[in-house]
């Protein structure tokens, strides 16, 4: 039972929570829209790895860091002191009730909690395969000890592969790379490539190392050779100098989740990385879509005047941008829908856009955000919701509907 503090000193007791019930309307949408007829692949979803932190730490090899982390995790303040972390109010004072109520949600007996809870929302949304990412670790790139990022990344990835990805084929991941240490990141790609459920590799964007640094080239070459995607997952950092000017989480979230991807994309394109790795498949995750027309217009316009600074490019920056892939969430729904339609056209959404829910985070998107768009034909809807991902990740689902949809 939880006792939630509400406004003006009221309280509310809640006995139980079942995200399947909370998502009953999503399941209804899945039925009404006929999601049973085509695959839905979710390229960005999350779990809360601190719930399994004791298990994860068992996979840590550095004995001193392991003991430090185990002790930090043993009191009431789970994980505090180990994970860099964020001031931030994702749950809006509990208004997004799945945050405070998750702790009383029960999994199925005998099934790993992450597998059980993930399958529950996947079935409700009609999602067949989900790419699962951690949550607090999205800020691990800010850890001041590079060796701590490395140790936690190894432990998490080993745990994820053995305890979660082994158990459920519908859950896959693009594994976290400790990008502040290029050598260890390279070793990690080598170690985990081809393991069950490893669909690619992921860099959390909130960090302060430029993506065009020479030390990363061998990682890009290796991932290109493997033929799996490399993803940049957005995040926020309220301690970023410019973000400290803002007094509200909405402000930091609205700008922060775009900002780091803007920086990395600018470096990526203007340093000609796409020319050096023409077959490397790159996905930009969780920055929404509205930033892309801005980036294309801004970089193209300046490049035409200052191309001498960017000799690695053989075409306009915007043309590289529209060769890359994007996840849809949090998709901005403008008052004037012609802006969204123009954005879809501008980024070649019908071949480059991948549906993502970001569930269970506060601003998750249902498949209906794509399916109900009035300007898309049925084929485009199905491609964005799953068809493009099936090809990109070479998923072998043979037209089967894996989600339990009515």
């Amino acid at each position, binding site marked *: 039972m939880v006792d939630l503090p509400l406004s003006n000193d009221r309280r509310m007791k809640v006995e139980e929570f079942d995200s399947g019930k909370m998502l*009953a309307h999503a399941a209804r949408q899945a039925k009404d829209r006929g999601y049973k007829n085509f695959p839905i692949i979710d390229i960005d979803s999350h779990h809360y790895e601190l719930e399994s932190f004791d298990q994860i730490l068992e996979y840590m090899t550095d004995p001193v860091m392991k003991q430090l982390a185990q002790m930090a995790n043993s009191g009431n303040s789970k994980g505090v002191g180990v994970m860099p972390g964020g001031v931030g109010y994702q749950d809006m004072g509990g208004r997004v009730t*799945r945050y405070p109520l998750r702790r009383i949600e029960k999994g199925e007996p005998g099934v790993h909690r992450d597998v059980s809870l993930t399958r529950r929302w996947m079935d409700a949304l009609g999602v067949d395969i989900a790419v699962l990412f951690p949550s607090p670790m999205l800020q691990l790139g800010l850890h001041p000890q590079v060796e701590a990022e490395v140790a936690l990344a190894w432990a998490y990835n080993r745990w994820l592969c053995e305890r979660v990805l082994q158990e459920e084929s519908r859950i896959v991941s693009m594994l976290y790379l400790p990008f502040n240490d290029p050598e260890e990141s390279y070793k990690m790609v080598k170690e985990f490539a081809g393991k069950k459920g490893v669909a690619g590799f992921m860099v959390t964007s909130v960090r302060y190392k430029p993506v065009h640094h020479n030390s990363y080239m061998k990682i890009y070459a290796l991932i290109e050779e493997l033929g799996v995607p490399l993803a940049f997952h957005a995040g926020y950092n309220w301690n970023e100098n410019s973000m400290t000017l803002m007094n509200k989480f909405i402000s930091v979230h609205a700008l922060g989740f775009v900002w780091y991807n803007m920086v990395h994309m600018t470096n990526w394109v203007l340093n000609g990385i796409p020319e050096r790795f023409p077959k490397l498949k790159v996905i930009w995750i969780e920055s929404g879509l509205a930033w892309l027309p801005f980036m294309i217009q801004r970089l193209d316009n300046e490049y035409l005047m200052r191309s001498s600074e960017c000799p690695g490019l053989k075409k306009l920056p915007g043309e590289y941008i529209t060769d890359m892939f994007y996840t849809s969430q949090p998709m901005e729904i403008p008052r004037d829908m012609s802006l969204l339609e123009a954005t879809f056209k501008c980024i070649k959404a019908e071949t480059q856009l991948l549906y993502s829910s970001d569930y269970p985070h506060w601003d998750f998107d249902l498949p*209906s955000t794509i399916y109900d768009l009035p300007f898309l034909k049925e084929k485009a809807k199905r491609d964005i919701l799953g068809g493009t991902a099936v090809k990109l990740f070479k998923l072998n689902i043979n037209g089967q509907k894996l989600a339990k949809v009515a």
Partner: protein
Amino acid sequence: MAEVFVARVAEFPDGDRRIVEHGAHNIGVFHWQGQFYAYANMCLHQGGPACEGLIMHKVEDVIGPDKTWLGQKFSDTEVNFVCPWHGYEYDIKTGECVPDRRLRLKSYKVVRRGEEIYVAV
């Protein structure tokens, strides 16, 4: 027009809510400060269960006579229910979406018959 039973008044305390279904109707009924209000339990955002979330007083800025910001408080009079999926807030007395009052949930008439509460669908 059908009347759907919601609850006996004695079993529906002030500050609480009930969800009732009738055919395709999924309705949230609120009991707030002696009044009953009923709305479609279908959020105007992505179709979430708008009536199933927290009931929260509206957050207000406190602005001084010199226009400086002095802090925040919860309203004494304005109360919203909040869609639990992403936080759209609805005025409990009108069903209007608070950040854009042009949007409004479908409302239902609440009928009291003796000690029993019904909604008309």
